[in-house]
């Protein structure tokens, strides 16, 4: 779900409009608002004010209602996220096995708090609630990949490796 950088905004908007047009053909189409917001976030990376305005216009639902729904649910992000989105599981099993130490270490290493992104747009930090890998607790998910049996040292190593990877990629692009 981090695909957006290559697309331009116009293209994203068009794709979203096509999606909404399909939804509008269905019965009780207003009730699909959450599905549409999921799609918008998938396409755009997060729910910007402009994207919500677009949904409002297309669906003929007041922006205030859309804002209300978007802010109610944790899953919806209202600001852009970094290249690597780290979700530390703070579910019960992970918590009991020391997830807070892992979380603290990440905060210290990246100098960001939960819900924030590093200035270079490289890392974002979130809390997750049980991603169903309790047997590997404590776990974190970085983008779509799960890292298990973490401890402070291991997570620092992982972060450093990702930093290196990103640097390599940049070199290749240049």
């Amino acid at each position: 779900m981090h695909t957006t950088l290559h697309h331009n905004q116009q293209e994203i908007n068009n794709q979203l409009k096509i999606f909404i047009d399909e939804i509008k053909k269905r019965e009780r189409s207003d009730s699909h608002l959450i599905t549409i917001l999921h799609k918008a976030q998938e396409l755009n990376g997060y729910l910007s004010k402009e994207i919500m305005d677009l949904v409002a216009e297309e669906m003929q639902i007041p922006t205030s209602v859309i804002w209300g729904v978007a802010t109610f649910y944790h899953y919806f992000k209202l600001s852009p996220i970094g290249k690597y989105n780290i979700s530390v599981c703070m579910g019960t099993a992970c918590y009991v096995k020391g997830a807070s130490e892992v979380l603290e270490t990440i905060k210290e290493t990246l100098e960001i708090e939960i819900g924030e992104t590093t200035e270079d747009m490289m890392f974002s930090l979130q809390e997750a609630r049980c991603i169903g890998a309790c047997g590997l607790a404590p776990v974190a998910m970085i983008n779509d990949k799960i890292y298990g049996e973490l401890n402070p040292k291991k997570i620092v190593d992982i972060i450093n490796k990702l930093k290196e990877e990103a640097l390599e990629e940049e070199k290749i692009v240049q």
Partner: protein
Amino acid sequence: MEKQMFTDRFASVFGTESFFKKQKRIALKNCGLIDPENINDYIYADGYKALGTVLTKMTPKDVVETVKASGLRGRGGAGFPTGRKWELTAQQESDEKFVVCNADEGDPGAFMDRSVVEGDPHTVIEGMAIGGYAIGSSKGVVYIRAEYPLAIKRLIKAIDDARKENFLGKNILGSNFSFDIEIRYGAGAFVCGEETALIRSIEGLRGMPKSRPPFPAAKGLFGKPTLVNNVETWANISSIIVNGVDWFSSIGIDKSKGTKVFALAGKIVNTGLAEVPMGMTLREIIYDVGGGIPNGKKFKAVQTGGPSGGCLTDKMLDTKIDYESLMQAGSIMGSGGMIVIDEDSCMVNIAKFFLQFTQDESCGKCIPCREGTKRMLEILTRITDGEGKPGDIEKLEELGNVIKKASLCGLGQSAPNPVLSTIKNFREEYEEHVYQKKCRAVVCEKLITYTINDKCIGCSACRRACPVVAIKGAPKEAHSIQQELCIKCGKCFRSCKFHAIDKTSEAKEQK
């Protein structure tokens, strides 16, 4: 023949270890054995046989009576008799009714429903179709967490495949009964697992609960009669129809029939899902199925019911796992989370963890829950920060009881449970925190004293990590911490690679 093949396959996949010996699999009967993306695998395993039987040989009323007689109760938490709920919804007169599958699975630390949907999606679809027939509905909705992408993918495929084979759609298997299912996604709000909030969320709104009555059975989705059941409840239906009421009610005990799936986690050797017959004791599930506590540590408590449940002690290990016994012991069955806690965990901290969760998830609609949980959390934070005052524990109890009685929905009504049950069972730990500023499990950071032991090689990592310059020592010489400057942030401990920093928490003199 096929049956034998199946048993063999079961043994080859799972082995015959004690983890499986004591289990009895109904809801999970196909999980791990069949290819969830292949409808034929499900059909070979007697799949859709129940739907066929129901449509050809039973009236809707028969189906309701069968489910009633089986004694099945809701697996989503509250344990409401399923047949009774079906009957209530069936009795409603309406041009339109809905069948809803609750796959929101909000308990943070449990994944029973995810495993069923990922491992055997057709069993949920079949259950819902049978439910639709029984209550006179042609529309089903699965409300599933967006955080479960694989489950969603498999469910979409399963629904498509079921349509192709006419197990869903118009005139199913040549009968007059038509039924189809659509999927709606959650978006990370715990309260949306509560059925009235879930309904509002399906309607595309903020997922805030409503007061009941009217119950969804009378006035639910889009104002129409709606039957809401949990994934695992649905996954029991086809087996009940195929194997009969007598078979089902022979498993389990008194008022709790059948099995329950638990997600074993925490300080336990075998973590994972276990489906056990109702009436097994906690001791059996923790020690026989779960293999006990790892690393020679001592068992301290077991938490069931997630953020709505409670913690039970070693004295209660012989409690039977059924709705009533767990309730009597001071916890609940809940949806199946079972977290084992050993001596390394602080019960006050665990209670705070759950309360933080419910406080964060409180939707804000009713005041007891919104404000009450906040005040409770403040007091708990004070206690774990070493600033607890005499009377705090009593205040927590009083507040907790008010919130339980006065809240609008099940979230608030159960939010104080983890706190109240730990106060009841581990009061001395609370008292140590408040009166002696001591945390016996050495977890609560502010109550910890950090000291440097003789493993220190003088690498200075801790000195550099300390934000308040409380650590002294020349390079390559043993360092020391000046206690009066220490703010107990724990950074030195995390920075040390030589296990040279000790954490202790002793009773402190009261001024």
